[in-house]
């Protein structure tokens, strides 16, 4: 690759492009962000999973930077902040903050995911008092009058904080342009998910995943170009042929991301992953955000009405699992892998309702847990492999 800031999109090799994306993800010092700041003079704001309105930041000249853990880096100071029964992502985020990896960020936004991340936002305020820290209190009431008003106020508050941190003031036309840029990006992502659903052997999930993750540290325009190049390259691979594998949906990995080795292991164990919830910020809306009317209202409306069922959003008890069952049907999946981080409250508390729903629908499933620094995959390989066998041999008999 040319540099870590500008991927070589002229490459004719999918291997090169994927390996460049992997390097971009692996380098926790985020050289692409540093270079972007030097080039543009803009500010960069980090954000945690699962969703923040990146369009708003983009419209104010801010680079939104997704922080999804630190993989398998050694945690030295991060462990001192959390008990052993807390998931891994807050410790690795603290580690990145304290070891200077995130120095290039001018602030952090912590969306409402769970109590742990909420607490992390408080700790961040104490650790980095000179930087912008915003807890994005996403509404759990989805009516326009209550949740909509609340959320719009929260977005205005965030916008003002960005101005205080050095960003330009929010203007309606700029926000409309940003919505257009992110709509374009979302369409590119959805097109790749559609392609993988149709021809999963062409688009290995491990490759698609790193292409999505690269978007967390790149400007949206660059990322859209990357996805278009990625799509062209995978479709040109004539040596990729279908193998008799089980088609599965993977769910539960919306916050702390699994190690890349785990995704590769699942695919090698005989599963075609035809849908997942990795890097959910890039597919948070089912369709486009409206590009007409008041753009802030458009952001609010999309959040209230067009977001997927996710354990971080309130869903009535009777409704839990219904969307998952629908997704299984829509993508022709034959089973569900419940793949959640250890100690992830939102994922693991919803899992009993979700498994009950798929069981009622007669869909085979299996469940296992991981941590972002999991290094041994043999047990999961056996489990996923025998699950794939059972689907191929016993389902429908």
């Amino acid at each position: 690759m040319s540099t870590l800031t500008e991927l070589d999109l002229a490459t004719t090799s999918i291997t090169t492009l994927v390996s460049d994306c992997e390097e971009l993800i692996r380098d926790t010092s985020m050289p692409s962000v540093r270079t972007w700041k030097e080039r543009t003079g803009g500010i960069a704001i980090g954000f945690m999973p699962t969703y923040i309105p990146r369009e708003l930041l983009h419209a104010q000249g801010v680079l939104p930077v997704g922080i999804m853990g630190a993989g398998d880096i050694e945690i030295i100071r991060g462990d001192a902040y959390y008990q052993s029964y807390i998931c891994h992502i807050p410790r690795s985020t603290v580690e990145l903050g304290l070891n200077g990896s995130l120095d290039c960020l001018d602030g952090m936004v912590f969306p409402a995911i769970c109590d742990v991340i909420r607490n992390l936002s408080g700790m961040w305020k104490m650790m980095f008092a000179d930087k912008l820290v915003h807890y994005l209190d996403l509404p759990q009431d989805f009516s326009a009058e209550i949740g909509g008003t609340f959320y719009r106020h929260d977005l205005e508050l965030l916008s003002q904080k960005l101005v205080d941190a050095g960003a330009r003031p929010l203007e309606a036309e700029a926000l409309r342009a940003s919505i257009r840029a992110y709509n374009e990006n979302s369409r590119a992502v959805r097109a790749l998910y559609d392609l993988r659903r149709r021809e999963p052997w062409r688009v290995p999930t491990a490759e698609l995943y790193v292409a999505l993750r690269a978007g967390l540290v790149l400007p949206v325009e660059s990322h859209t170009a990357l996805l278009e190049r990625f799509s062209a390259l995978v479709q040109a691979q004539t040596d990729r042929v279908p193998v008799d594998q089980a088609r599965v949906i993977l769910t539960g990995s919306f916050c702390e991301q699994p190690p890349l080795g785990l995704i590769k292991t699942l695919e090698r164990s005989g599963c075609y992953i035809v849908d997942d919830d990795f890097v959910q910020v890039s597919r948070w809306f089912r369709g486009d955000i409206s590009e007409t009317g008041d753009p802030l209202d458009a952001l609010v409306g999309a959040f209230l009405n067009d977001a997927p069922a996710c354990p971080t959003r309130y869903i009535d008890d009777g409704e839990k699992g219904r969307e998952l069952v629908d997704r299984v049907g829509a993508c022709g999946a034959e089973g569900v892998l419940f793949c959640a981080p250890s100690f992830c409250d939102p994922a693991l508390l919803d899992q009993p309702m979700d498994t009950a729903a798929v069981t009622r629908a007669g869909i085979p499933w299996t469940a296992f847990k991981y941590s972002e620094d999991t290094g041994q995959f043999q047990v999961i390989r056996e489990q996923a492999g025998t699950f794939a066998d059972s689907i191929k041999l016993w389902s429908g008999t």
Partner: protein
Amino acid sequence: MSEHDKLAIGIDVGSASIKVALIRDTQADVELLVGRSERTRRREATDVVASLVETLLSEAGLTREDLAYVATTGEGEIVDFRTGHFYGMTTHARGARFLDSEADACVDIGALHTRAILMDERAKVLGYRMTSQCASGSGQFLENISRYLGVTMAEIGPISLQADEPERCSSICAVLAETDVINMVSRGISTANILKGIHLSMAGRYVKLLKAAGATRVVLVTGGLAADVGLMAAMRETLAEADDPLEVRSHEHSVLAGAIGAAIWGAFRARKMERLGISLAPGALSEART
């Protein structure tokens, strides 16, 4: 051959050897046409696979185009011309059931791991237990010991049967067991008694695995060590001492059980895909499933 018959090949890629089996599935019956096992030694596993497959097909007067399914198991992901892959538990259970229709459990003794598998009459896996990380009790461990003692793998069984005072060794740790063996040699213990002691230690471990998996009636030993008459005798003695009715059997094709099981499941899967209208031709798979 009827037009409804399915020919399938099973390729079991193990850490020490590669086993290949070619079967004909007539729906009413399954016939093992030809099978072969070959040690990988220092060659590329993919080369050994290619050579074995071509040899078997040539012996049977067939070509790859005649095959309805190329099924792999073990480390079979390295085989790029596979139709599909099945896991060791799934294939050994099916292979064991094919070789001995009365078996309701099998114990797959591989070079690095051992698994006890419980299955039903359709060869569906009902439960299993597996050895942990340590290589003690595995085929590789026994091979190392045979090397220390200067005997071949083929000689181990008959020599072990000659033991009169077997010396037991550690069944938990391969390193401790190897140290035990060195001590026994220096103490002048006969090779037969050392080997029998090792067989008894391994047998004790396998019986525990089988009982934990829930085996109660007939167990078929699969993998290369099924041909070790000393080990088989030690397993039977261990069960007899415990007054356990579990019956341990072996078969001349036990070493091929994984490959046979893979081939049978491959043919089964080929029929199922045909019934469901699933084709692996580019573009066709997604059309049928979505």
